[in-house]
């Protein structure tokens, strides 16, 4: 028995198409226009916005808008290339090392996951020195924007 006969291989190849709905649609349109859209519900602020309040299941009270400046709540420095990870349809994949962060925009109750970059070095220990929890960051906009989450290329430290 050789290896290729005792194994069978196949692939799943599925196409999907999902609706954004109004709420995420507004958020993505905002990104296209270099704005961060959020919403507010019972004095709870959300960036990105929520389609409905997770407590009452009712639509939120009002739309909000801000420049996207926020605080790093947590982060990790990714040092190894990972096989099979595609970042988006356009695959704007950063080279290693890169930083993935958890960012709280303004007074939002929840955070957003995004890249943190702009350290002007590829040295892991130098990057580690330049980033810390609680640090202020702001979005850096992609030149070509298509109304998707990577319209923000990354967040960079506010100096």
């Amino acid at each position: 028995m050789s290896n290729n006969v005792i194994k069978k291989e196949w692939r799943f190849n599925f196409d999907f198409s999902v609706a954004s709905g109004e709420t995420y649609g507004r958020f993505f349109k905002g990104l296209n226009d270099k704005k961060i859209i959020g919403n507010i519900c019972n004095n709870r602020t959300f960036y990105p916005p929520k389609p409905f309040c997770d407590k009452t299941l009712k639509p939120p009270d009002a739309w909000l808008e801000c420049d996207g400046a926020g605080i790093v709540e947590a982060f990790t420095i990714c040092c190894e290339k990972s096989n099979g990870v595609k970042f988006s349809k356009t695959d704007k994949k950063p080279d290693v090392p890169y930083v993935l962060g958890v960012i709280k925009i303004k007074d939002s109750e929840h955070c957003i996951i995004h890249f943190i970059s702009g350290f002007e070095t590829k040295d892991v220990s130098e990057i580690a020195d330049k980033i810390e929890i609680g640090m202020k960051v702001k979005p850096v906009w992609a030149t070509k924007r298509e109304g998707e989450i990577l319209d923000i290329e990354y967040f960079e430290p506010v100096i």
Partner: protein
Amino acid sequence: MQDISYNKRFEYNWDVPFKVTLGESYFRFLDGLKNKKILGNICPKCNGLHVPARPFCDKCLVEITKWYETSGIVTIESFSVTYVKFLGLPDPPHITGIVRAENAVTSFLHQIGGIPYDEPKELDEKTKIGMKLKPVWAEKRIGDIQDILYFTPVDA
């Protein structure tokens, strides 16, 4: 009421490779196809003939180790003629069916072909439950269920 003018559709794709281990029974069954043999095996407890061969009998939950080479002739249990183009399927009309080898306690799924027709619609009548079929083998066989291209009437 939502304002659907903001709605945007996002498209994405899953393309995921898989690899499974055959185990001895399926290996021997598929390897048999490579040699133009349709192998079954017989449960030591209930004497049931299983075609395709399988590792254990699902009634008795005992290992099946006794091998049996069938004549290759199968009987149609049921079938359906596909008249519409399906993604990933051969052009219509094509027939898939459930066929049974000899007096096996299990049947299996395969394609049925070589039934002559003038109008595709006739295939519903010309293919018959209970009809005896024989395998048509692929030229190049690799140890796969599709080493049998399709089953065709014995008198064809």
